[in-house]
Structures are given as structure tokens and as C-alpha cells.
């Protein structure tokens, strides 16, 4: 009888094997597959089968629970039949598939069968990863010149399992793959070992079998005379227990669904690359912005599909520069796609075109929302108006200093200035030119050629959408416009006109949910995470009949600051895309909707914005933020952090906090999260409930 071997990792197995291989005692190593070589990112494994049933149900229009029942029924019958025929209670996928289809549709459909089989394989593939230590071990065994076979108790037949092993890059290690489903004989009865010994023409004493199951992989192997090794990986067992608890808790709803989902995503990310990348921005993108942007993209896809089902399908998706850049890249990864394009639109070019019929008071005051506004100069910058021509006219209306901030928006001088025919003539002339070029650009991208168009952007006021309607809404071919925003906070405008729908997916201030408003409290970091590396669009030019965007020159002061941050933004986006790739796989496995995940994502963002770590505050405040509303201003994301001494000057502290882009970063130097908690409560008291 072989010795009782319980080893805790692959290195220990190797240490035990090495002298025996060198002594020529071992001719064959047999390896279990599941939970030994391959580990799952989901627990329990039935989640994969449930996911297959959901995919099949969706394809054929049957409730997933019925598809699951039909499968269970077919499986049970096959197991009973196998036992009655004198075999082990094994179920073969090759037999299961026709029986399952028969239970569902009372007929066979070859194409559907192929779909079911491929879905099963691809979902198994998505849930599995090769344990890195196991691969190192197999490489070593191969170097020693010892043959390896795979022996598994599994319902997938050898061909399917081999395909799965091939996808994981493991098939070439094995001389042969023995699967219980092929012979209807399992390891747990010892029959599969006997068959393996017979086929491999070796004696039991020359074989070592390694697996994670103490009964079928060690005890039963030993009973057959094979040296069985129980691979007892405590860490792995603990991980599986934790995941199983997470899955159980997810049935309670609330944040538990999201926690289960993102724990699975994290497991998958770590399994794929156990190294923790040193780059902070990559990690921040992957762990903080990744969940937020991914849930936004899923929400967008769900809304587009819903519209399609209602027969109001969006015909074209326009990802608006510059923050639509990342969203367009993420959208390209989706399986079902609509025609989509990244378009060069900016607040600057849209507002410039919107004054082709004159500048109203409502439009003029938009420029004064900027805390750094410089009166009429800001109005000119926002609407692209010629300052030199308007300056003398402003003087006539009492504006001695053209750059003096205007705090009283009902200033009589301003009203008189806007009523002046000469002012409006200049505005109309310049606005007309801008509108003509913008119109030609929109025609070029097919904006007017579709009945329903969706704009996708980060947020916040929907300025582009509002002004597009204002500038071209009178055209008969103006499409029904849907604006999908990461966060929608319409502080500037309330009325967007008919057939002009706006929705914030992660945050919409009109929903009145205080807990979801977190993106609006540090807008800049989300804009930084999604933005393109290119400069903002400041106009258009005609290049031999083709309209091309004119971008802000690289020599502009704000652009120079932006260029310095581009490398960090690029790392952040790599992290987000890494997260997105795993997010999609886990979404297929769990089937959770964006609505189920949102509460947890709001919690993740609350942690990141209100309770940042020292490292987060240090690194993120190095970024600079620019706004494309005509100015060259640069917004520093962090100012001097407050110390305990500052608490003696509360008025100054309040002033600091009011103007800070990221107020919670100011509390960085005060230990514990208590000041953040207190500050959060105070802030929530001051905002509308």
C-alpha cells in the first residue's frame, strides 16, 4: 500500500518527487484537473450551469428556471440509467444535450445544440484559470522526461475537455486525457484508475496521482496501488469558502449583490495576474474608476437593448469628445454593437454655433457659472465672439473694465448691452459662421441622416445636447436625441425641448437620491479617467471640402499642463480596460443587472472620494484639470492639506472647503477617517435633501 501523502503545495510535491524520478521509480504522473490544475473564480461551480441556462433561455425565449429544470431532469435520468446499466452514476454531456433539448422542445435542433455546447465551453473557460504554480510544476515534470496524463471526474466528454484544456494552454502537457464521462467510470470507484493503467501499459507502482480530493484522488488511487497525493491548499480552500459565503449573501440583495460580483471580479483579476502592479494610476483605474465606468457601460447597453425591444432602436451612437473617448473604446469590446463613432464636439464649438440667431440673456449668464469668470470677456470666450469688436460697444454701456466679473446677473448694463443692435449684428455674423461649419460637420458624421441618435458623455449639464437642439432643432430632419450620461446634474438648464431625452446612469440628480450623488462631488477625477489624450475642439476648418476639427494648440498653458498628465491618464485607462475585460466575463457568469450593482458601486465611490487613502490623495492631487469652456484655466485638484492648527480658524477652513475641487483631500493630514465622516455629515446637511 502506498504511503499516506498530504502535501500543501506544488513545491512540496516537487521536493517529494525529485529523488524518486531521478531513481527511475516513477514513469507516469496523473493529474486531476478541476481545483487542482484549474481554479474557478466563481463558487459554487453550478453558477456556470445557471449562466448557460440563462444564455439558452434568452436565445430561445424560455424562462431560465425552466431551462435549468429540464437540464436537471435530463441529468438525473441519465445518472439513474448509468447505474442501472452497471456503470458508475456518471452523466455524459454528449447524451445530456439531446435529452435536455428533448425535454425543452420535444425535438432536436442541431444549430441550437451547437450553441448550447459552445456557450457551456466558453462560460467554463471564463470561470477557470490555470494555477500559476501548477504550470511551473508541469514544466518541471516535462523537463524531467516523465509522461503526464489528466484524469478527471467530469460530465464533459474527452473532446470537449480537451478543447477546454487547449484554450487554457494545457493540452500539450498530456499524453492522454481520461474523463469519467467517456467510460461512465469514475475515480471515486477506482474504475477510471484501472482503465488508465490498462491503457498506459504501466504498473500501479510506477504511477503517482495528484488531486485535491482526499477520497477520490488519494484514498481510491492508493487502493488501486497508485501513489495518491492529496494536494491540500489551505489558502485555496479558504478562498472558496469566502466566495461561497459571498454568493449566499448575494441572495439578500442590496449591496451584497455588488459585493459578490466585485469579489468575483477581483478574484479573476488576481488569478489572471497575481502581481500587484506598482503603478498607482493603473491600480486606481482598475479598482476605483473601473467598477464605476463598467457599470455605466452595462447600464448603457441595457437601455439600448430595451429601446430595441420597444421598437425604438437607436440608429447611431455618438461618443462625445473628449470624455467619450474611453467609453467608445469600452463599447467596442461589447458583443452586440450599434454603429458608433467618436465625434469632435465640445461645449465651446456648440455654444459658438448656438448664437447664430443672437445672444440672449439666458445664454450670456451661462459664462458666469465659472467661479473664475471675467465678465464680458468670459462671455466672448464661451461663445467665440470677437473681443476687440465688442469692447468699444461694451464701454458705451458702462463696462469700463471688460474683464471685471459680473456677479449681479440682472445688471442693467448687461441687459442694455445685449439689447444693442450692433452687438447682436456682430454676434449673429460670427455665430452664423460657426453654425455653418458645425452643421457641415454634423452632416458629415451622419447626424441628420438618422431618426434616433444617442449621445454618450460623462455628464454633467448636458450642454452639448441642449445647444445642439437650440442650434439645429428647427430642421425637419433633426433626430430624436437621447443623451446617456455617466452623471447628469442639470444645474444650468431645465428644459431640453421635445424629443430630447437625457438620463444619468450612475447618477441623475432628478432622482433625488442623496447616496448616488457622489460622482458630482469630484467630477474632475471621472473626467480625467475618461478623457482623450487629444486637446479640446475649438473649431472646425474646411479641408478641400471635408470638415476637420481644430484642436487647441499644444502651446496653450492649460494644454501644456494636460500633456504632462497624459501618461498618468493612459495608465489609469489601462487599468479601467483591464477591469472592463474581467467585468464582462463575470457579468456573463452571474447575470446581474446594472441596477443590482449600482448600490455597491456608489459605496466604492463614496470610499474613494470621501475617505481617500494617503497615497490616493498624494497621487491624484498631482493631476491638473482643464475645462473646455473657452478659458485656458487650469484647476488644481488639490490644495494645501489642512492641519490640526487650522481647526482654530474655522471660517478659513470653511472657505477652503467651499472652493476646493476635492474637499475631502484637504483632510488628508488629520489622522483617522473621523474628520471625513464629520465633514461628510455637515456637507449633507447643507445640500438639498
Amino acid at each position, binding site marked *: *500500500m502506498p504511503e*499516506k501523502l*498530504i502535501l500543501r503545495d506544488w513545491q512540496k510535491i516537487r521536493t517529494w518527487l525529485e529523488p524518486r524520478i531521478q531513481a527511475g521509480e516513477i514513469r507516469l504522473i496523473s493529474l486531476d484537473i478541476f481545483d487542482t490544475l484549474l481554479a474557478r473564480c466563481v463558487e459554487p461551480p453550478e453558477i456556470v450551469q445557471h449562466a448557460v441556462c440563462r444564455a439558452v433561455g434568452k436565445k430561445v425565449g424560455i424562462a431560465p428556471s425552466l431551462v435549468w429544470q429540464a437540464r436537471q431532469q435530463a441529468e438525473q435520468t441519465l445518472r439513474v440509467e448509468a447505474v442501472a446499466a452497471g456503470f458508475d452514476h456518471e452523466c455524459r454531456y454528449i447524451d445530456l444535450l439531446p435529452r435536455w433539448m428533448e425535454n425543452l422542445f420535444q425535438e432536436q435542433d442541431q444549430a441550437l445544440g451547437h450553441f448550447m455546447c459552445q456557450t457551456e465551453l466558453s462560460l467554463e473557460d471564463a470561470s477557470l484559470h490555470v494555477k500559476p504554480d501548477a504550470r511551473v510544476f508541469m514544466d518541471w515534470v516535462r523537463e524531467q522526461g516523465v509522461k503526464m496524463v489528466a484524469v478527471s471526474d467530469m460530465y464533459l466528454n474527452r473532446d470537449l475537455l480537451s478543447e477546454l484544456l487547449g484554450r487554457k494552454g494545457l493540452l500539450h502537457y498530456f499524453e492522454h486525457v481520461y474523463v469519467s464521462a467517456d467510460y461512465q467510470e469514475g475515480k471515486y470507484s477506482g474504475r477510471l484508475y484501472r482503465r488508465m493503467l490498462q491503457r498506459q501499459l504501466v504498473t500501479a507502482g510506477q504511477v503517482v496521482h495528484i488531486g485535491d480530493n*482526499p477520497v477520490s484522488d*488519494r*484514498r481510491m488511487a*492508493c487502493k488501486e496501488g497508485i501513489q495518491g497525493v*492529496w494536494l*491540500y491548499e*489551505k489558502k485555496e*480552500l*479558504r478562498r472558496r*469558502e*469566502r466566495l461561497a*459565503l459571498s454568493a*449566499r*449573501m448575494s441572495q*439578500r440583495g*442590496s*449591496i*451584497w449583490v455588488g*459585493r459578490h460580483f*466585485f*469579489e468575483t*471580479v*477581483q478574484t479573476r483579476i488576481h488569478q489572471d495576474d497575481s502581481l500587484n502592479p506598482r503603478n498607482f494610476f493603473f491600480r486606481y483605474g*482598475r*479598482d*476605483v474608476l*473601473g*467598477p464605476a465606468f463598467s457599470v455605466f457601460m452595462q447600464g448603457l447597453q441595457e437601455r439600448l437593448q430595451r429601446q430595441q425591444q420597444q421598437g425604438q432602436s437607436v440608429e447611431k451612437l455618438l461618443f462625445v469628445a473628449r470624455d467619450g473617448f474611453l467609453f467608445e473604446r469600452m463599447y467596442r469590446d461589447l458583443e452586440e454593437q450599434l454603429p458608433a463613432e467618436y465625434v469632435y464636439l465640445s461645449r465651446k464649438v456648440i455654444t459658438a454655433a448656438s448664437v447664430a440667431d443672437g445672444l440672449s440673456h439666458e445664454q450670456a449668464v451661462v459664462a458666469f457659472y465659472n467661479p473664475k469668470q471675467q465678465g464680458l470677456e468670459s462671455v466672448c470666450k464661451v461663445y467665440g465672439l470677437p473681443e476687440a469688436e465688442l469692447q468699444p460697444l461694451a464701454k458705451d454701456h458702462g463696462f469700463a473694465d471688460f474683464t471685471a466679473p459680473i456677479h449681479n446677473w440682472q445688471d442693467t448694463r448687461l441687459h442694455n448691452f445685449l439689447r444693442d443692435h450692433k452687438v447682436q449684428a456682430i454676434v449673429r455674423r460670427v455665430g452664423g459662421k460657426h453654425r455653418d461649419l458645425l452643421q457641415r460637420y454634423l452632416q458629415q458624421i451622419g447626424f441628420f441622416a438618422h431618426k434616433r441618435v444617442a449621445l454618450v458623455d460623462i455628464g454633467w449639464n448636458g450642454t452639448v445636447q441642449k445647444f445642439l437642439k437650440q442650434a439645429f432643432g428647427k430642421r425637419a430632419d433633426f433626430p430624436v436625441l437621447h443623451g446617456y450620461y455617466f452623471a447628469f446634474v442639470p444645474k444650468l438648464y431645465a428644459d431640453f425641448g421635445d424629443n430630447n431625452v437625457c438620463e444619468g446612469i450612475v447618477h441623475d440628480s432628478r432622482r433625488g*437620491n*442623496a*447616496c*448616488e450623488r457622489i460622482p458630482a462631488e469630484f467630477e474632475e477625477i471621472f473626467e480625467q479617467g475618461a478623457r482623450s489624450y487629444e486637446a479640446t475642439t475649438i473649431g472646425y476648418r474646411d479641408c478641400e471640402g471635408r470638415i476637420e476639427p481644430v484642436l487647441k494648440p499644444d502651446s496653450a498653458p492649460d494644454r501644456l499642463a494636460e500633456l504632462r498628465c497624459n501618461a498618468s491618464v493612459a495608465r489609469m485607462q489601462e487599468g479601467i480596460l483591464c477591469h472592463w475585460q474581467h467585468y464582462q466575463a463575470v457579468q456573463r457568469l452571474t447575470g446581474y443587472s446594472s441596477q443590482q450593482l449600482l*448600490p*455597491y458601486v*456608489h*459605496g*466604492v465611490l*463614496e*470610499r474613494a472620494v*470621501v*475617505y481617500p487613502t494617503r497615497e490616493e490623495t498624494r497621487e491624484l492631487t498631482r493631476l491638473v484639470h482643464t475645462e473646455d469652456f473657452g478659458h485656458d484655466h487650469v484647476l488644481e485638484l488639490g490644495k494645501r492639506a489642512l492641519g490640526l492648527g487650522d481647526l482654530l480658524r474655522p471660517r478659513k477652513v470653511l472657505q477652503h472647503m467651499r472652493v476646493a475641487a476635492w474637499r475631502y483631500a484637504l483632510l488628508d493630514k488629520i489622522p483617522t477617517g473621523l474628520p471625513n*465622516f464629520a465633514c*461628510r*455629515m455637515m456637507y*449633507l*446637511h447643507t445640500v438639498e*435633501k
Partner: protein
Amino acid sequence: MVLHPAKLFVYALAFRFSSGRGRCFSPGFKALSGWYASRVQQWLFDRAAAKWWRAYLERD
């Protein structure tokens, strides 16, 4: 990315103490207690260790 549920519970208290709406990302006290109970159970009844002892003590 994976936050301790107790942390979320505390974060949500800030909403409860101010706007009165703290449920959105709060795990809920009952569920949180249930989760803690399961974790303690997992720690006390270490199934992995029990499995190991069983295999270690069993007779071949």
C-alpha cells in the same frame, strides 16, 4: 474594490444622521450581523482543517 461591509455600514450612517436616507449602500444591520456570524462560524468550525485531520487520522 472589495470593501468590508462594516465600512459601508459606517459610511451610510453619515446619510442616516443627515438626510435620513442611508439605505442605498448600507448592507443593513441584520444582514451585516448574519455575515459576521457566518465568518465567525467559518473561523470556529474550520472545515478545511477538519478535512485534513480526517484524512490524517484515517486508516488506509
